[in-house]
């Protein structure tokens, strides 16, 4: 039950994109088509899930014993970068189409603040349990994917809408993102976690 609560909390109540404003760059950048946004979401999910497990191990068994907790940011970025490289190689081999569609945003997962944010929050909230940390990260990544896919659906419809010329492109996307964020406020207070 606790795991379900952690998952829903990370995915909906404290949605990384719409409540915490993390990972806005790919949210705007790769949300033009639904299949690429889904691919991006899955790539982030894979990176986040594995990274949260590895960072938990590294933090608990390397950084804490040596009293080097202040190194956690650089160590986490290192781990994320490594995983992103692996994901990139995997996609390049097995899904070249998705690899090309994601373009620069794939290596940019390295510096995606949603990933680093989830890893840092894990230390604050769930430094005692590996499983909880992973569930939290997967929940966060699911929330990221959900926001991305919903947003790409809306942008799809927007291309048929009569948008005033000065709002075309990113400006209207930012407005829609703001409205979605307000909609997600409805989840706040549902779970206090």
């Amino acid at each position, binding site marked *: 039950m606790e795991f379900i609560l952690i998952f829903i909390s990370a995915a909906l109540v404290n949605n990384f994109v719409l409540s915490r404003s993390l990972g806005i760059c790919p949210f705007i950048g790769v949300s033009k088509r639904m299949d690429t946004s889904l691919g991006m979401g899955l790539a982030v999910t894979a990176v986040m899930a594995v990274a949260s497990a590895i960072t938990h191990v590294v933090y608990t068994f390397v950084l804490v014993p040596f009293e080097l907790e202040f*190194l956690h940011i650089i160590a986490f970025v*290192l781990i994320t970068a490594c995983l992103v490289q*692996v994901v990139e190689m995997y996609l390049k*081999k097995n899904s070249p189409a998705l690899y090309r569609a994601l373009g620069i945003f794939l290596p940019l997962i390295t510096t995606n603040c949603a990933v680093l944010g989830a890893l840092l929050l894990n230390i604050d909230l769930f430094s005692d349990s590996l499983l909880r940390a992973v569930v939290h990260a997967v929940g966060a990544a699911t929330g990221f994917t959900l926001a991305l896919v919903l947003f790409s659906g809306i942008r799809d419809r927007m291309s048929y809408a009569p948008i005033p010329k000065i709002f075309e492109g990113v400006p209207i996307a930012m407005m829609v993102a703001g409205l979605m964020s307000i909609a997600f406020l409805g989840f706040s207070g549902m779970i206090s976690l």
Partner: protein
Amino acid sequence: MNTLVGTLMVLGGLGLFFGVLLSLAGLKLKTRVDPRLESLKDILPGVNCGGCGCAGCNAFAEDVYFGKAEPDGCPVGGDELNQKIAGIIGVEIASAVRKTAYVKCIGNDRNALFLFNYQGVESCRAAVRLVGGGSKGCTYGCLGGGSCKKICVFDAINIIDGIAVIDNEKCTACTACVAVCPKNLIEMIPAASTIRIGCNARDGGKIIRQNCEIGCIGCRLCVKVCPKDAIEMDGALARISYEKCDNCGTCADKCSRRVIEKG
């Protein structure tokens, strides 16, 4: 000191560990890339200027490789690079001739008639809306308002004696001025050509004599003397074919109006 050693060891160890992991993964997930694509990426300038319209040199290399972009799309590398690219992907492209913009009017404020003194906004596009299409007597002529000079980012256009003159050394043939000129006076011509007809007026002899001391009156003398048959009449206006012209200059010497420039 202890912290420093610990930091170095931990970060170094982590880096080494993940580095080894990555290189193993790299071996496992190796993709074979066509060597032609690799060499395309190698010979491109690598400055990622975006002048080709792609997101960078690598994106351009891939577009060329998959046939989505023309091999001569890179504006930076010049003809030499274009030929190399064409050689790698196995197509023939014609050697591109360097072009330059040319203003087809040499009727400056000494030898052309002005009907009134224009003191409005310094812009041909504003001046051309006045009665008679601007202050110049000749409705085809350059107004010298500097719309082309303003739009040229390469600083290649100067207004000299009331007409626009293009510096062939600085011109990069971006064609921005061609689009902006309200009189459609600017033409792209091979930069190597030295014989140019500096008139675009199609009024015919009588009116041109009133408006301009040097405008082309359509006397056909140049057509007759040209040994290459490179000049043809377009109504009352002589036009030169730059493919045929060998820059001998016979026409410029014979022209009674001195409208053919010999550069």
